[in-house]
């Protein structure tokens, strides 16, 4: 009997194919939106985690100032560090394998008559170690170049492409502000970060060179510290904090005027933001599912009125109220499930497309897909029940008279 009812429902839906499609469009869009939002959200969360893992889970970021504001904001009113602090950390904290200062500024890099605006970072080789970032052409900084603040630079892949195309730039000169500096290497390409920013859009110069020739001071606003293998990041954090408190002469009861953040913390903070955004967007999308359900109810009511005569015939030949109820309820459910299936297909396609453009992993979640499917069935039950009950309560004589 149920199989019969489903067959009947499919046929009734097919008979009004265009109207049925327009009816379920709301559900299609709702389900598609929820699935696309959640899938893209989960993909970018996965990307953030991956990126942070690439940075190295054993890397600590040390910044002046108290609250964790964000990864690359360099504006702070707190006392900056200096290079002696970095050296003391390397020397005095056994859990720290190596550490690098990092300063950054946006400026134009010029090679010949090509001009390209990029981020110039002052770092040491230790930064390349900490972030596990190999030089694929040429070489890293020599000790003398680091100590003496020489005008040498290592290019990110994007900057290389912009200024030199596919040719080997090692040995050539580029100009940063008024400083002419020799290209000694090219970094391995890393691709886009989870926020869409191009990580290869970078020029690295020794930190001392940066301080003398660009910043004009000896400030250090960021230290990257790599924790020794086998040492816990919590232990390293504690030790670093103790040393920095001593250096910065912070009294016993006083709070730190700097903060040490590990990458796991950073990752969970970033994925936390992504998750909240995903949740909000999915909630908005869910509202359209609700609206889609009301659309189904509307058209089912119209359908019951249109088919009053048919209902009368069915009642006359012996259909019981619950069989009529079942027929219309099943029709509403089949309708919304079809909408759900179309929505799943559309949502996953959109998510796959978005993942390609945003260069994030495409991670469809079966729980979300099944959930959306179940929810569209629920929409059918809830919004189909009222029209179906109205159909079932028709009086056979009245219904037969209705034309």
């Amino acid at each position, binding site marked *: 009997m149920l199989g*019969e009812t489903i067959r009947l429902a499919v046929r009734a839906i097919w008979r009004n194919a265009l109207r049925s499609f327009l009816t379920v469009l709301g559900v299609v869009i709702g389900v598609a939106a929820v699935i696309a939002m959640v899938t893209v959200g989960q993909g970018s969360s996965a990307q953030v985690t991956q990126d942070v893992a690439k940075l190295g889970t054993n890397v600590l970021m040390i910044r002046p100032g108290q609250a964790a504001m964000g990864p690359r904001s360099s504006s702070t009113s707190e006392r900056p560090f200096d290079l002696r602090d970095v050296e003391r950390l390397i020397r005095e904290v056994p859990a720290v394998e190596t550490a690098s200062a990092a300063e950054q500024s946006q400026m134009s890099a010029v090679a010949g008559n090509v001009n390209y605006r990029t981020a110039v970072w002052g770092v040491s080789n230790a930064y390349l170690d900490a972030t596990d970032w190999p030089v694929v052409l040429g070489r890293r900084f020599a000790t003398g170049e680091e100590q003496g603040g020489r005008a040498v630079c290592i290019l990110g892949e994007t900057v290389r492409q912009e200024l030199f195309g596919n040719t080997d730039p090692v040995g050539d000169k580029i100009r940063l502000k008024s400083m002419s500096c020799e290209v000694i290497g090219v970094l391995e390409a890393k691709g886009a970060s989870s926020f869409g920013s191009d990580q290869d859009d970078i020029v690295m110069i020794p930190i001392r060179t940066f301080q003398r020739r660009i910043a004009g001071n000896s400030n250090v606003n960021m230290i990257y510290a790599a924790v020794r293998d086998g040492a816990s990041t919590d232990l390293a954090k504690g030790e670093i904090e103790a040393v920095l408190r001593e250096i910065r002469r912070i009294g016993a009861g006083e709070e730190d005027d700097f903060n040490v953040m590990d990458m796991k913390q950073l990752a969970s903070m970033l994925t936390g933001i992504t998750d909240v955004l995903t949740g909000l967007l999915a909630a908005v999308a869910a509202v359209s599912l609700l609206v889609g359900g009301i659309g189904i109810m509307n058209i089912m009511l119209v359908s019951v009125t249109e088919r009053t005569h*048919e209902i*009368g015939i069915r*009642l006359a*030949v*012996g*259909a*019981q109220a619950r069989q009529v109820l079942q027929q219309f309820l099943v029709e509403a459910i089949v309708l919304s499930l079809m909408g759900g299936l179309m929505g799943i297909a559309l949502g996953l396609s959109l998510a796959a497309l978005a993942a390609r453009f945003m260069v994030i992993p495409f991670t469809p979640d079966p729980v979300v897909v099944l959930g959306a499917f179940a929810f569209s069935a629920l929409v059918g039950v809830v919004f189909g029940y009222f029209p179906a009950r109205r159909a079932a309560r028709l009086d056979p*004589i009245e219904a*037969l008279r209705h034309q």
Partner: protein
Amino acid sequence: MPGDTPAVIALRDITRVYGRGEAEVRALDGIDLTIRAGEFVAIMGPSGSGKSTAMNVIGCLDSPTSGEYLFNGVDVAGLDQDQRALLRRHYLGFVFQGYNLLPRTPALENVELPLIYKGMGAAERRARALEALEQVGLAQRADHEPSELSGGQQQRVAIARALAGSPEVLLADEPTGNLDTHRSAEIMDLLVRLRAERELTIVMVTHEEDMAAYADRLIWMVDGRIAEDRPTERGARDAG
């Protein structure tokens, strides 16, 4: 012949009242009627005489306001909507003036409709429906939708549908009302033939003397009461 068969339908002082107070309408005002198995009864009367209401009550589409209705000796006057649906499903077949076929649905599926509600499997349903269509001479039109059939053919499909469920009683409400004289005669001949083949009891409402003549008993209704109940010429001849 009908005189010695058991009573299928027995109405005792049946009333059907619509509305209340001033607006009260007594569509049926105390009907006593016994119809025996195998009878072919025609109900006639001016419009508003209550013949359609009587048909609805006999067909269990409607419940009487008061009185006793024995169907095969069982009181069915107080049955609820769903119980009456079961009674219609298993014992009654309907033929209407407007055919009442499902539009855009092939004849065969229209005939199968009551069998679906009897819970019959697809194969048996199909066989029974085809058999019924064959009996009304429309087996070769099984795949045609109502819109592709003439009025007479549509009414024959409707008769096949009414018969497919093997009812005891066939209720026909102005079955020839939409048909010309020639087609009407065809339908009536068909009913007479089927009644003999299937040992059916037929109750038919009509306003045409010619059609009533096919029955063997005539009930004349006026103002919700039975004014006359007599054998037709055909009935008198058969009895005699």
